[in-house]
């Protein structure tokens, strides 16, 4: 993992340390800084805005409780996303959201001769959004952190508690699955046009 420059993150670390010591003003400041980022991450896991708000609150309750245990191995943002990840998965796992049948998509991906990259590059924004929404939680959140939050693979691995190789393979698989989902949609459209 590339070392994180100390100065960019110093302010945040001080805030987190003060939060750990029980300083409410510090938690308020952390919330003000990171509510947008954490909320955006949570909204990629669930489309339910109320649930996302509730998870945001649970995340900051958990931050208050565990701030003192921050060991400084990652950036504060990564650590916050990690806390949000655990809060969200505790809840979403219980709900068992219906997900796309990935085995089915993977089969399509293997059978489809159309070049992967061309299909993706031609897709419209709406088609891509719909296809991404059908991905599993793990693939969606990895895409969101890699592109929406522009996090390096090592930081994503830290936030999600998985090896860096898993992050890269999730990205590869996500692209493959999106290609499969899109070829089905585009194929159906072409059928209709005939």
């Amino acid at each position, binding site marked *: 993992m*590339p070392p994180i420059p100390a100065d960019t993150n110093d302010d945040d670390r001080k805030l987190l340390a003060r939060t750990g010591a029980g300083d*409410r003003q510090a*938690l308020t400041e952390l*919330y003000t800084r990171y*509510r*947008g*980022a954490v*909320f*955006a991450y949570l*909204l990629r896991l669930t489309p339910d805005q109320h649930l996302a*708000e509730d998870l*945001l*609150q649970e995340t*900051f*309750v958990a931050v*208050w*409780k*565990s*701030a*003192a*245990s*921050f*060991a*400084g*191995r*990652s950036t504060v943002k990564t*650590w916050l996303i*990690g*806390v949000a*990840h*655990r809060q969200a*998965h*505790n809840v979403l*796992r219980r709900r068992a959201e219906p997900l796309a049948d990935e085995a089915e998509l993977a089969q399509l991906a293997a059978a489809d001769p159309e070049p992967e*990259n061309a299909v*993706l*590059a031609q*897709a419209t924004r709406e088609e*891509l*959004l719909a296809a*991404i929404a059908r991905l599993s939680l793990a693939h969606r959140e990895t*895409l*969101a952190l*890699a*592109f*929406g*939050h*522009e*996090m*390096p*693979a090592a930081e994503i691995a*830290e936030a999600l*508690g*998985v090896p860096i*190789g898993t992050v*890269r393979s999730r*990205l*590869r698989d996500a*692209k493959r699955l*999106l290609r499969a989902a899109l070829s089905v949609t585009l194929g159906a459209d072409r059928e209709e046009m005939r």
Partner: protein
Amino acid sequence: MTYEPESMRHADEHASDLLPEYLAGALDDATQQAVRTHLLTCVSCAAELRAWEQIGAVERDRVAETPTPALALLGEVWRRIDMEPAAQPTESRSRPVTFLWNVVTAQTRLLRRSVWVASALGIALASLLAASLGAELGRDGVLTIALPLIAAAGVAFLYGPDNDPGLEITLATPTPARLVLLSRFGLLFAFDVALALIGTLAISLARGESLWGLALAWLGPMTLLATISLALSLFTGPVVAALGAAVAWLASALRFDSGLTLRFPPEALARMTPGILALSVGTLLLAMIAVSRREQFAPVDN
């Protein structure tokens, strides 16, 4: 570091795995430059980059479109914090008994139901078979042969990504992996022993024999074989571990004196001796050390 260790070691290698980070500007300067140079000449990576750009644009827009949550939401955060004064960060550590109880009970929900059902069915069948056989058919041997095998097979399926889809999340919690492993083993083993004791009690009552004498014949090998199977499963996966334990069990019972015969229990394991107990505990400790080493990537910062 000039290049990521696993990719882009040479300029002619493809940059596939680095493209998402390249696009996000998340690579260090030298790697970023190396990928840029590679893209100038590599048609397939350039095409791939365009595909990622499409996906990246959608994701970036999504974040940009997210409304900023209200500052007022923080009020509810304070209310929840003030509502549970007992839930201080060190609570779980400061009350070891409560913590241990929570960890152990949590495992009952995380373990596969099939492990419990299969173990219970196996033990019930073995007990029924032992009760129905006559003495001349070796009824005493049935429990001694079957119970260690059933325990070993169940234990092999306790731990590991093949067995527990939620393991990734379990490892992201502050609970040490070795404690998770130990409590899972303790739970299933206690469950097996309890059921086996019930079966043995029924048989001993029907025959007027001592429960203790019958139980001691299977308890030693059951304990040792279960810990061996657990340790094996960490290295080889569940199926190989269960088979390995079965082979070890049969091999230990082989006797060559008057032709090839099987003798259960094997002489070396005929009783529950301190030696067998020590060997079992040692194997269990080995498994816990192995799992701690392996799961070191689990976050320590929470």
